[in-house]
Structures are given as C-alpha cells and as structure tokens.
C-alpha cells in the first residue's frame, strides 16, 4: 500500500522503492481555476541557477531528459517522469509546485495529492486539501532532495505570490549571474527548442499549425527568457532580467505568443476529469492560437458552430479514443494493479496462485478464468454466526485478468511480507490464496449483530481492502479508540479490547442510543489501525 505522508514527512527514496525511474503525479483542482504545475531543479543553494531545469508547460523536459513533463494521465492533473540517476550533479533539489493561473486562492482547492509511482505501483502519496491554505496563490507540494541519497519530503507550503513570486524565490538573486553564466550555454537556443517541442506533441496530428508558429518563436523568445534577451546584448543592467523573467510566467504580455504551446497541454488533461482547468485557461490568449487550426474557437458561447468541435478536437485529438484516453486501462506488469482508486486488476497469469474475492466483486475479466464458489472450508469457520454476516467468497483461477470493484468503494492493496493484518470482514475485497487467513470474532455487548468479524491474514501475498472514502491510518498509542463500525484494519500485533466507555459516551451525547461500542487498541509502537470515514 502506498505510504501516506503528512506535511513534513520525509523519507529516502530507496526506502520507498528500489527504482530510480519514477513517475510523479499531482492532482489539484478547483472549480473555475487553472493550475500550472511545475518542477524547479535547484542547485545546492536552492537557487534555480539553470533555467533549463525549470520544467513547466513551456519547457517539458530538461536537457538530458531526466525530468520530463508528461501531461495529465491516470487521474493526475499533471505528471512528471523523473529519472534520478540521470539528474546532473549540480541539481540538488527538485521542487514540485502548483500555482494558480490567474485569480483565485488555494483555499478553494479541493482534495489533491502529489504521489510517486514506481513500476506501476504507487509508493507514496501526500494528500492535501484547500483547508490547509488560505489566500496563497501557489503551493510547494513536495521536494526530491539530495542529502547523501535522494529523498522525498512532503512540503505543502503555501506561497503568497503566484508563479512569478516562486520564481523570484528560487531564482531572483541569480538573475545577476545569469547574463554571465548563461550566455556561453546559449540560453536562447535552449528556449527555442522547447517551444517547438511543446507544440507538436500537444497538438498531435496537425502538422501545419506549429509551422506558422515557428516564425513567431524568435520574436517572443527575447521577451520571454531573460537570458535570451541578454545573449545578444549583455550590456543591459542586471535589473532588467529580473522583471522580465518574473513577468513572463505570470501570463502577462510576453506570454501571449507563447500562449499557444501552453494551452494544449492544459486541454489535453481535461477531457472528463478536471473541468475547472479548461475554461480558466480560455480567456488568456487562447483564441488567437487556436484560430489557426480551428476557425471558431471560443467566442461561440452559444455556438452557431455545431458541437464547437474546433474546441474539443485539437486539444484532445477529437473522437472517441481521445475522450476516453484518461480512463484507459493501465498496462500490465504486476499481479495487482490499481486501475484507478476504485478498480483493481489482478493478473492471474502472474504468480500463479488463485485469488479469493468477495462474490459479486468481479466487474469484468479477460481470458480463461474459472470462478468457483468458495464454500465449506471458509464458511465453515463462520458457522455459528446466526446474523448472516458471513462472507461469500469466490475463487478465481486460471489465466487472465480479473477486474474487481464494489460499489465504487476506494480500494487499497496491502502487501504482506510475512507480517500480519486484521481486516474487518466487511472490508475485505480480495486476497491471494497463498495467504493464511483466519476468521475471528470479537464479541461484546452492543456490537451490532453480537459480534464483529475480522479476518486475520498472515504470510506473503496481497490483500485488497475497500473503504468508503479516504481512510486514516493511526499509530496505536495507549489511548487509541475506534468505532467498531468504522474500523477497517489493524496490524495483527496489536491487541483489541472492547472499550468500556459506552456509558460515558452515552452521557456525553444525550439522546444517543448508547449502543455504540468502541474498540480500544493496544500494542507496541509501530502498530497501526486504519479507519474509514463511514460507519457500517
């Protein structure tokens, strides 16, 4: 299961995953707002000493392609590919930031996250929401930083200004050196190519539009990148690059010519998911660029143009395939692969062991898969349960892929490597047959149905747990209590005690029926419990 980070958490990447080719996904959205998600490659002094390591919509990759902007996919608003071992030595920190394009404030932001995925599996996630922020217009989400080894830190630090202020923060002071430092490297060309690079992939098919834009490139280039301006005339006072540089990303004037490349990536993301993005972008400078390919871009609020096709067509590529692109199946490669938060795919061909799944949780399968009722052995152990809570399982065997989901509940895969976990029986969706499992009853007055059924898993394999909503993982302390209806799972080394605080609770909440029982957990440090925001 992906580790959930809180603000300020840090970890070595190598502790999270052995891989160094990482996918970094950011989801952030708010109705009516558009976000620019960028990555700053900073030097040891946390300065953006090399502009080519400011990865954003206009510059989708670093020179040696160790950091690449991938666009929206797999539910992420923006995503990056970071190849740690190819990052040059002078880059000591990668800071991932999100800034609001235009007006707005971070407190409007809905739940979002930054996550790292390695080998198709999410290894860490830092979730945040707008309630942590106030009027900021930018936020530093998370950093990769080099301290002996690469590490990841969940930052979640708001920033009052927008992208310009962030840039100033990272590179403002550097501006003086830049003219000198950058010229030899030929900053101007370095800015040019990215602009071209952006355009074609974004626009997809149409080869024509980039061409007409090309001539423009030289012209905006100077206005955009400070170094470019400097290159021909190193003379100008250092003061000058400053404003220019900061002004640029603010989407002020200089941006407009460049407006073309940035737009499509934004649109590309949108299809179904993050609507806010699209229209926010609409006003600034979009019409003119689109005009080139699509005769009637925006103005058609009430379109005389059927379907406003021009709109949909260029960004997403138009058509069915493009519209459904964000929902594509993720490639195979692992036994258990989450397709999205609510769907899990198990590839029975890998690993070879059958899977036990809750009956009715199969939504689709491909290949030759046998489903059989898993009765007796398992059900037998629950005999004596008169309440009908027993769980019906089915055994999936054969070869092929089975897609599991239930009622749109969030799914989490927990990989056990010799350790144990107890899961409330209702929250088990599926598990590898190789795991030892055992059903336990927790009896007590006040538990609905007379007892709480839990399944204890042990051994090596994966358990899929479903939760309604995003769960919370709490460490077990001497005073950890959970509602027996909301608790999802706990590490099996912790001891469960039926709390005797029923009476207290009843008094505390007049009118309460008093039937609620709390479970108390005890255990050595390192144990945890998982609770969902949903009772029963």
């Amino acid at each position: 299961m992906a580790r959930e980070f809180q603000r300020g958490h840090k970890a070595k990447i190598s502790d999270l995953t052995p891989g160094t080719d990482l996918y970094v996904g950011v989801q952030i959205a708010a109705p009516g707002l558009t976000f620019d998600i960028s990555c700053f490659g900073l030097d040891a002094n946390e300065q953006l000493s090399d502009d080519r390591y400011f990865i954003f919509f206009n510059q989708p990759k670093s020179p040696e392609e160790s950091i690449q902007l991938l666009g929206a996919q797999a539910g992420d608003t923006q995503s990056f590919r970071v190849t740690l071992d190819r990052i040059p030595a002078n880059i000591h920190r990668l800071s991932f930031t999100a800034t609001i394009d235009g007006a707005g404030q971070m407190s409007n932001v809905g739940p979002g996250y930054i996550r790292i995925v390695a080998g198709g599996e999410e290894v860490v996630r830092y979730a945040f929401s707008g309630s942590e922020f106030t009027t900021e217009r930018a936020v530093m989400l998370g950093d990769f930083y080099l301290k002996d080894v690469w590490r990841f830190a969940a930052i979640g630090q708001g920033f009052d200004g927008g992208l310009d202020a962030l840039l100033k923060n990272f590179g403002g002071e550097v501006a003086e050196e830049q003219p000198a430092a950058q010229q030899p490297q030929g900053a101007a060309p370095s800015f040019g190519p990215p602009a071209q690079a952006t355009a074609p992939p974004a626009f997809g098919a149409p080869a024509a539009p980039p061409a007409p834009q090309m001539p423009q490139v030289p012209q905006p280039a100077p206005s955009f990148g400070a170094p470019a301006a400097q290159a021909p005339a190193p003379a100008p006072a250092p003061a000058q690059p400053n404003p220019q540089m900061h002004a640029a990303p603010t989407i002020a004037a200089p941006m407009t010519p460049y407006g073309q490349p940035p737009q499509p990536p934004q649109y590309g993301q949108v299809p179904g998911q993050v609507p806010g993005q699209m229209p926010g972008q609409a006003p600034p400078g979009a019409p003119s660029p689109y005009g080139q390919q699509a005769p009637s871009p925006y103005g058609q609020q009430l379109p005389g143009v059927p379907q406003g096709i021009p709109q949909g067509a260029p960004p997403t590529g138009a058509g069915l395939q493009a519209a459904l692109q964000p929902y594509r199946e993720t490639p195979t490669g692992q036994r258990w692969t989450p397709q999205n938060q609510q769907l899990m795919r198990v590839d029975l061909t890998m690993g070879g062991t059958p899977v036990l799944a809750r009956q009715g949780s199969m939504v689709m399968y491909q290949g030759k898969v046998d489903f059989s009722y898993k009765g007796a052995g398992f059900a037998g152990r629950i005999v004596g349960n008169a309440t009908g809570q027993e769980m019906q399982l089915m055994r999936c065997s054969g070869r092929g892929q089975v897609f599991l989901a239930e009622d749109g509940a969030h799914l989490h895969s927990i990989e056990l490597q010799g350790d144990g976990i107890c899961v409330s029986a209702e929250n088990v969706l599926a598990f590898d047959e190789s795991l030892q499992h055992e059903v336990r009853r927790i009896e007590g007055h006040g538990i609905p149905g007379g007892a709480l059924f839990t399944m204890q898993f042990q051994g090596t394999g994966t358990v899929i747990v479903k939760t309604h909503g995003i769960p919370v993982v709490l460490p077990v302390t001497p005073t950890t209590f959970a509602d027996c209806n909301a608790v999802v799972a706990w590490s099996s080394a912790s001891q469960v005690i039926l709390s005797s605080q029923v009476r207290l609770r009843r008094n505390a909440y007049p009118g309460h029926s008093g039937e609620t029982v709390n479970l108390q957990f005890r255990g050595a440090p390192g144990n945890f419990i998982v609770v969902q925001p949903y009772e029963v």
Partner: protein
Amino acid sequence: MNQQLAGFAPTPTAARMENHGRTMLKVAMASGQDLFARTGSMVAYEGFVQYEPNPPAVRQIASQWVTGEGTPIMKCSGDGLLYLADYGADVVVINLNNDSLSVNGTNLLAFDAHLQWGVEKVKGMAKFAGQGLWNVEISGTGWVALTSRGTPIVVDCGRGEDETYVDPDALVAWSPNLKVKGKRSFKASSLVGRGSGEAYQMAFSGQGIVVVQPSEDSTDRLRIRH
C-alpha cells in the same frame, strides 16, 4: 460567503459540453442544436430552454423503449446553458468524430439530437430488459455525455484470442462493432455476480473498446417523478 462560493461559479463556456466538477455536465444550448437528455436529469438552466418530455422522434426510434411512464429521454431546445447530473455519478464527455458507440441506457446522460441513434435490446440479454438493459447506439459527429458510478475504465478488446466478459451491471459502453453474447456463468455450482445464481456475463469479442464502471449498480435513478 460569496467569496468562498465563488470558486464554484460556472466557467466561461468553451465547448458544447463540458464537465463542471466531476459530476455535473454543462451544455451550451443554441437554437437549431437540440439535445436529447435523460428525463429528470436537468438540475438547472440559464436562458431560454424548453423541454419536450415525450418527443415524437423518440417514440419513433425507440418505440420499444417507451414504457407507460413515457420515454426515458427528453428533447431540450433553446438558447442558454443547461446543467445536467445524475445523482452524483461521474460524467464523461465524449466528442464523437465520426465514431460510433453503444451505451447502456442507464448510463446515457445526453447527446446531440443530430447524431444517428437507435435503441435495441442487448442481444441474448432479454432477461435484463426489465432492468433497463437497453443499449443506445449512437454514431456520427457530435457530443455525447455518459455517466459512470465511480471512475470508469476503458479496456481494449481483441487483445489475443480471449473474449472479455463483463458484468452487465457494471457495463457502461462499448464499440458497436464488437460481437456480444450473453454467457450464463461457468459451472453450475458457481455463484458469480450479484444475487443468487443469476450469474450472467456479457462476452465481447472482436476489436474495440469496452467501458466499465467500478460499481455493479445499474438501478435507474432517473425515473420520472409524477
């Protein structure tokens, strides 16, 4: 108060159909461009939009689909902005570009009236007709909006020899060129699928895509309320 809610204001219209959040659809209406939408799915509108609950066109094309309660889709026409939703289901907007798509009747939210469309019972699945397992085949160039309970997934069929089997309750849409057949499940002893013993899957073969939702709940929430 206003300031906090301001973030939810509608965004400038950029296309005929757009998402507003995950679960609401915003349609820019213009006269001459009619829209078919599920009856009862309108949550708000702005401007001058008229609704025709029992459009003759629908009666003609989808006569079998019409029940005593009337047609399940209505015709919307006029100028303005129309907001549609289906009880918090995710909305997926698709811009057909001379494509065609078969959509499960309960998962269809709206589509342009100028598209070609037809209704048929899902083959081999007569049993499910009572549950509303009608599929609407839409083709042409224009906009379609689907609903999905949870984030849907799109799977390619025709990868290898194997057929793709889908729980009918989780099925959202598929390419009409796929071959569909009902499959009564597996071994007599097995109980797959919701309920007891009603283990039906739909088997798809051929080249195309299948869209599936992560929930096996296809009950029709949008019934006309009298």
